[in-house]
């Protein structure tokens, strides 16, 4: 990431932040955004807690201009500069990722909104193959957190009367001593937990301040939405018709400083074969 931290951002005006936040993809719906903001601020009203599925209203457009400067700042810190890496930030970034990721064939996502930053299960995904997946999010995964999380997942599973087929621990950073190859028992079922990290690709051909243009489509994407090449390719796969795809970057497009390197550069060219072609 080459996006300035908020404190270093010279122009912290509402107009500037709003301009950047409008480039966050996938877009949040009217129903999603208030929940995102409340959770990352740590102020969730009791009436809004529980397992919520936002997928039905995903198409609705949100008017970001009504957000306060504080709210815009939070959005910036979580989704653009990613300087906030706590559990809730990881949770909502993961939620965004699952909307387009090809690693899981998502049918629906239930978000567990509790207002408790220590909750065990943050997201429940049902896949097209009818698998139930529990996601538990962390900022930095330590051994004791991991052990505790598995105990809490078992407890949650019993309370909700839902037995997952897979349990995925998603984290921003992880210690190396996590025994993820060891199975644990959940309702007589042996599950080997999986570990997902928010992978930032070294030598990534683009960075956060670049504009990424997918040629022959209407997709103009901000680099800060993606952390590696596979990530952006998944997004384009889900949001384009496929076929011959070329991605060019406009370096430093979102930078506060004018750069001489404004010439477009090709960063990926290939053919995307979609299943229905």
């Amino acid at each position, binding site marked *: 990431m080459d996006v300035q931290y908020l404190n270093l951002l010279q122009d912290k005006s509402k107009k500037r932040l709003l301009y950047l936040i409008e480039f966050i993809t996938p877009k949040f719906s009217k129903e999603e955004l208030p929940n995102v903001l409340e959770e990352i601020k740590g102020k969730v009203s009791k009436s809004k807690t529980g397992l919520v599925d936002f997928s039905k209203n995903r198409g609705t457009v949100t008017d970001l201009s009504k957000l306060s400067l504080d709210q815009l700042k939070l959005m910036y810190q979580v989704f653009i500069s990613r300087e906030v890496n706590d559990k809730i930030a990881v949770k909502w970034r993961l939620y965004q990722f699952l909307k387009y990721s090809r690693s899981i064939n998502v049918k629906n996502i239930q978000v567990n909104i509790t207002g408790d930053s220590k909750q065990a299960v943050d997201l429940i995904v049902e896949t097209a193959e009818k698998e139930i997946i529990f996601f538990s999010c962390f900022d930095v995964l330590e051994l004791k957190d991991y052990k505790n999380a598995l105990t809490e997942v078992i407890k949650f599973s019993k309370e909700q009367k839902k037995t997952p087929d897979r349990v995925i621990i998603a984290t921003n950073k992880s210690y190396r001593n996590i025994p*993820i190859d060891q199975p644990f028992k959940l309702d007589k079922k042996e599950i080997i937990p999986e570990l997902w990290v928010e992978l930032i690709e070294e030598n990534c051909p683009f960075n956060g301040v670049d504009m990424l243009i997918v040629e022959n489509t209407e997709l103009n994407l901000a680099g800060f939405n993606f952390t590696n090449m596979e990530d952006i390719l998944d997004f384009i796969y889900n949001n384009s018709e496929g076929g011959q795809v070329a991605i060019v970057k406009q370096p430093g497009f979102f930078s506060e400083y004018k750069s001489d390197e404004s010439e477009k550069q090709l960063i990926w060219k290939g053919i995307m074969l979609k299943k229905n072609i």
Partner: protein
Amino acid sequence: MGFKEISHAELKIKQGPNFVGIPLKHVGQLIKEEEVDIKKVEVVTSIDQASEIHLENDEVLNYQYLHDGEIKSMEGYGNISIYNNSSKDRIWDTQIHLSGTQYNSLDSETKMNLGIFEPKTSRNIKYNITNLEELPVALKFSESIEFLSDEFDGFTDMGSEGSKQNYFLMFGKENNLKFTISLENRFASRITNINLKKLISKSFYDLRIDTEYNKNIKFSRNTLDWVIQSLDPGQKVELSILGKVKPMTKENIRTGSLDLTYTIKDHAISGVNLEDFSAYSHAMHAIDKVEIDESPDNWRCSLIFKNRCSFPIKLNSIMVADKSQSTKFLDIDLKDKEIIILPGDIYNSEKWEVTDENEPKFSRKLEYSVTQKLQKNTDVVVHVNDEVFNIVGLQIRKEISEKEIKSFEGAKINVLLRVDNMGTIPLKGILLKEIIPEDFLPVNKITDYNFKNSSGDIKSDNFDLKIIPSDEDPSKQHVIELVNKEKMKNVIGSDDFLEVSYSFNAVSPDNKKDYKFPLEVKSFYHKFKDQTAMHDFKYEDQAGLRVFYVKEDVLSKEEEAPSVKISHKRRKVSIGKEIFPGRSHDEFAIVVHVKNKSNVKLDNLEITDNFPQSFQLISSNIENKVTKNDKESTNTIMFNVDSILPYDEKEIMYYLKNITGKEIQFSELESFFYS
């Protein structure tokens, strides 16, 4: 917002900002409190507040092997982590000198200056290990795959070292296989934390483990995990997995990859060695000068060294001399002596005396360093690729043109053999062996044998023919052997067939004997992947088993092998003739009885009779043909009968009329009958 799944192995070795701690080990800030406590005890008993400079040298070797043991790729790197675990003292002028760089990319000639370490900070020196091929193999591993059925000759010795073997499964049959994995510590030290993961194809069933280490093995998701706490030098362990598989399609069944990780404690396998480490921290040194009471201008001096930091300090040398350094009062080399000054302790040197009117002045030089603790470890990660089993199977069909021949009569019998390759790999050799019993004789020219596949006819000079014995004595049994010549690279390709048509002769088959014509097909498959030549051997020798797997199919059961029925057929026929008076005195009815008294059906019977030209044919019960024979003044009447079944009879009746008006005797008509 890219998230990515990380495997357990990746978590241990992958580098990047997402992972806390250096690959495989936790050093620096990650040292747990209890570990630190243990180290304090190890250093010295009286230093409850002692800090430590902790050096950890970790090396990681990453090997990828092909299944036959050939190295596909390898990489190795090392990391030396220097950690100041003091919460208050910094160290400075830190220098490190490493040697033994035969296997690594460090510069061994010079000391490295690492400068200042603030409290609770660490610094890493990374290096690549070169010349990996020269490193010793610490843990020797091997996997052999045995085929427990005996239908495949030469197959049970699969897995011999260093050979690129082909692995086979028989199509449509239950294959019993045994995977044997063995591990042997060939290193001089104990190897610990051995984890082995073996993938097993989901096509296998009835899986069983045969080992004495059952309790450390578990199966999940078609994965076998085997944990071995440690292996002493020379110690060997073995594990066998028995399983069954029955391929019913040309599916890809894999042998299963293997992952192995282990640790060699207290060794950096590349040979990198810490020659010297030195760093300064807070210490005070002074010269205590006391003018002797009873002897003015005479001074009793000593050097005082006080450790004012939280690290133990080792004194290496002390030199005290006069200003010009011409007279040395103290010159002690302590490098080989373990003089450790604990935190807060004071070292007092021997005393010396000097005479000086004024307070004496000295030049002094002290060499000292904080002590350090060094730990070494090598972690090895091995991945062994798997192979795909080749499927082998033949469908054999034999057809014989004659289903039935007569006993003691010569006949030509045509044979059609068809061998379909149902497997995924071409046949490299084929031997067709047919036994021709006595009373029959094979044809002995190769040109009389025709060969064909999906591309068309194959020249017969691609095959050798051998008839054993080579005589033409029908009283002996003969064996036909057809073998392809070496020039045929693939005898039957995958999805192809071989058709052979030829004939043999029945000389005098005896209906009292039971003749069988069994067929034996031996198919030959390359044992090794890079095998090109057929090798010089005879198929019937055991020598062939060194280079080929040989599968034998025998067509001998009645339902598979066609047979020839020898029937004893002899004709026996009786033809009778009766003459009756007709409706008027000049008419006669003649009845011919044709009786088949044999056990064979009689076909195409032609019956002729003669009668004088003085008679005229009036009618007959079956179609007839009358021809005049003027020479003998007779008419010939001919009847055709299609067939008479065994023991059946046919009656032919016709009427004649005397046209001369003269009286005639019956006997005149009797004498003309011919059939």
